């Protein structure tokens, strides 16, 4: 099936198999391997991308369902070589260890601040509860979201 997508500001018009998962389109066809596959069942969030402004798990939808959508992946966050505030915060606060959950975690964290500029710790933790991390115990990730919120508020 022919579909039209905008990914990180660039237009794509691929012909895809109806059963192709969006994550496989992004990784294997579009070559955007920053979004990862941690479970294929929507439980871990490593594949989280932004679709029309909403964080979604791209392993749990077909590429054809994204027809006409505007997508942002981790590769599209930095602008002109300048890191997004959430990326910078993850770096400063040591929010990544092995890094595998990190792209999805950053996309989910960005969504928290998009919806609420000044979240409580509890709101941050619930905001990322759909994203699993096995390394950090989440504490430095919570610190990162806090720090990104503080930096954005300045």
């Amino acid at each position, binding site marked *: 099936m022919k579909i039209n997508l905008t990914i990180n500001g660039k237009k794509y018009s691929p012909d895809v198999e109806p059963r192709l998962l969006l994550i496989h389109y992004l990784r294997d066809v579009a070559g955007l391997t920053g979004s990862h596959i941690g479970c294929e069942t929507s439980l871990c969030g490593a594949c989280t991308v932004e679709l029309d402004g909403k964080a979604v798990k791209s392993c749990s939808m077909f590429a054809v369902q994204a027809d006409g959508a505007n997508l942002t992946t981790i590769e599209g966050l930095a602008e002109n070589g300048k890191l997004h505030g959430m990326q910078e915060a993850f770096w400063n606060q040591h929010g990544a260890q092995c*890094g595998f959950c990190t792209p999805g975690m950053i996309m989910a964290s960005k969504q928290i601040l998009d919806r609420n500029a000044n979240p409580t710790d509890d709101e941050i933790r619930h905001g990322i509860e759909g994203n699993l991390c096995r390394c950090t115990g989440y504490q430095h990730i919570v610190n990162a979201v806090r720090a990104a919120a503080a930096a954005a508020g300045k």
Partner: protein
Amino acid sequence: MASTITKVEKLVGKRIRRREDPRLITGTATYVDDIQMPGMHYAAIVRSPHAAARIRSIDTKAAAETPSVAAIYTGKDTAKVGPVPCGASLPGLRIPHHYILATDRVYFVGHPVAVVVATDKYLARDAAEKIEIDWEVLPAVADPEKAIAAGAPPVHPEWPDNVAFNYHQEGGDVDKAFAEAEVVVKQRITSQRLIPAAMETRGVVAEWRAADRQLNLYTSTQVPHLVRTLVAGMLGLEENRMRVIAPEVGGGFGSKLNIYAEEALMGFVAMQIGKPVKWIESRRENFLTTIQGRGHVDYFELAAKKDGTILGIKLKLIQDLGAYHQLLTPAIPTLSVLMMPGLYRTQNVRADIIGAFTNCVPTDAYRGAGRPEATHGIERMVDILAAELKMDPAEIRIKNFVHREEFPFPTATGLMYDSGNYAAPLDKAMATVDYKKLRAEQAEARKQGKFMGIGICTYGEICGFGPSPATPAGGWESATVKIEPSGKVTVLTGTCSHGQGEETTFAQIAADELGVDIDDILVLRGDTAIVPYGIGTFGSRATAIGGTALYFALQELREKVKKFGAMMLESDDVAFANGRVTCNKTGQSKSFAEIAGATYRAMKLPPNTEPGLQSTHFWEPPNFTFGFGAHIVITDIDKDTGQVKIRRYVAVDDCGNILNPLIVDGQVHGGVAQGLGQALWEQAVYDDNGQLITGEYMDYAMPRAHMMPWVESDHTITPSPVNPLGVKGVGEAGTIGCSPAVVNSVVDALSPLGVRHLDMPLTPEKIWKVMAGGKN
């Protein structure tokens, strides 16, 4: 001419952000699944749905007719590939032949039976589903105690008792200790099976270059050199014809400290089809077939005097091994025995291990590997003893600690504790929570019928694995430092970080020793074609051993730089500091880069000196290092639901000198999360037929962000005398200190109901039942 020397700031000890992070936060890191090659094929593995069965026949016809399928292999095709190796040796150990694909029989759910190779990964999976296997299902056993009981179905028919080994270790005079005891406490304590569940599953890309007779194997591993040696051996390939690359590795926790059937299988496939092949483990496969951790049933006995002095410890340990021995499977429970005295002075211990085969995936090293089980045992037993004697759990610990002036301290299990000040972290943690006030508050809460618990764990752990005689593959580590002609520095380490931040900490060490800018340093690891032979990252060893190897390589180069600088300055009296060699008499100096260039141009050489600036050091540690610490956990239990709420979590860890506090904090937090997962939620549950009930993230309760308490992490610092960095290790500390502190806290909360012990995980259901029944 005298030059101005700017003092270069020391980086070791600084809280600096990590140098590996830019690629991780921008999605540009390369994990195994991110590797694409022209002509790539994709493998799908057909696995047993039964825990025990005979294979009557396999029909691959329909699968072979599926479009894009290039090849299908079964156990008949791969029978000549060497067995998956076990690196551990114990007297009388029974080692089943572990074929990479089952030949005539399967031993656990998920056992690989066939592999389908296709140019399309969706079609590969479609084809795999079309393979028809005629099974003769056999009785299975999934519980280690049931497995060694009379009449259990044999996992391996040649060993009907299901006993893989018996192991005995004894120190001191245990019988005398128990005869003289004024009190003896006994308890059965389990440490349940856990699923490591690194966020990146396993994955392999194999590429065979027939003309070069060269196999390139990209695999998500903690030990690339061991994979090369052992997988090359399995495939009958010369070791120097194989290159193993661990690209970005998305977590391991011990589960990637192994040699897996699929690594050899992908090598085999690539050599057969002459095209690159990729296999990425699905999460379901990861839960079923990657090694699991723990799996202990422990029977502890503690002998003591009425004043709380521990006289001796007995342990009967039944280890659930699973169906096979993976790389270190049988060795893991022996580590528990080594650490069974914990931080306490008793010199009388006796341990008997029974290694039990079950129809489950093998157990092996998972964060802590033997030490969390040991710590959980001794720390629970000390609390049980304290309750029996109506003593305060802090007091009884302090009474039995090895004293700070007794180091190095020989344990009854044959270890030599390097250094310690065991009361210091406990004092600090107790001060942080205001322990005395807290106990008063608890007494008040109990009057009001509330369940509030205070749990203490004081743990010791073996870090820095380890001296070679104690480590099957050798326990040393290598480091190479190359100072390039421009003065830029490349560090090659035999360790293999998979999240621990060694690209940063090792650069900190090198920057300090050479006095150069950290941005001039690049740390490489994980490629056997680039890095000299190394052992890898596990057992809280990378900094203590790999960092020390690096330190010594740097010392050699410091001397050489100094020697060249002296020649260039025509002086015998020079100093090397802050990246310059300076003549102490004239004040003239040469920069690091100027000297580096001169060593390669070699127009003039100091006497007995070779050109170039490169050094490799293999460092063999004289001992393990022994980290320790105290964790205190305050819990409140919901009377109506049995839910455990952690009010405070205080961790005071002593890991020796700290190179980067930011990274150490991260290690502690992550360790605590895994310990808390075990204490409260996680358990690999198999039914009586050997089916894994908790086979997905949906059913296996790994901690999520909203489940975690805030971890208040602090430290005491007792440098290790074992290495010049004074470091011990911190990768596993959080996990080891956590579960006993949490369980002690919950048992303390429920003690008014007569509860003395509860086995993990402490789910609300379990606690609610205890509260409803009023006792355990």
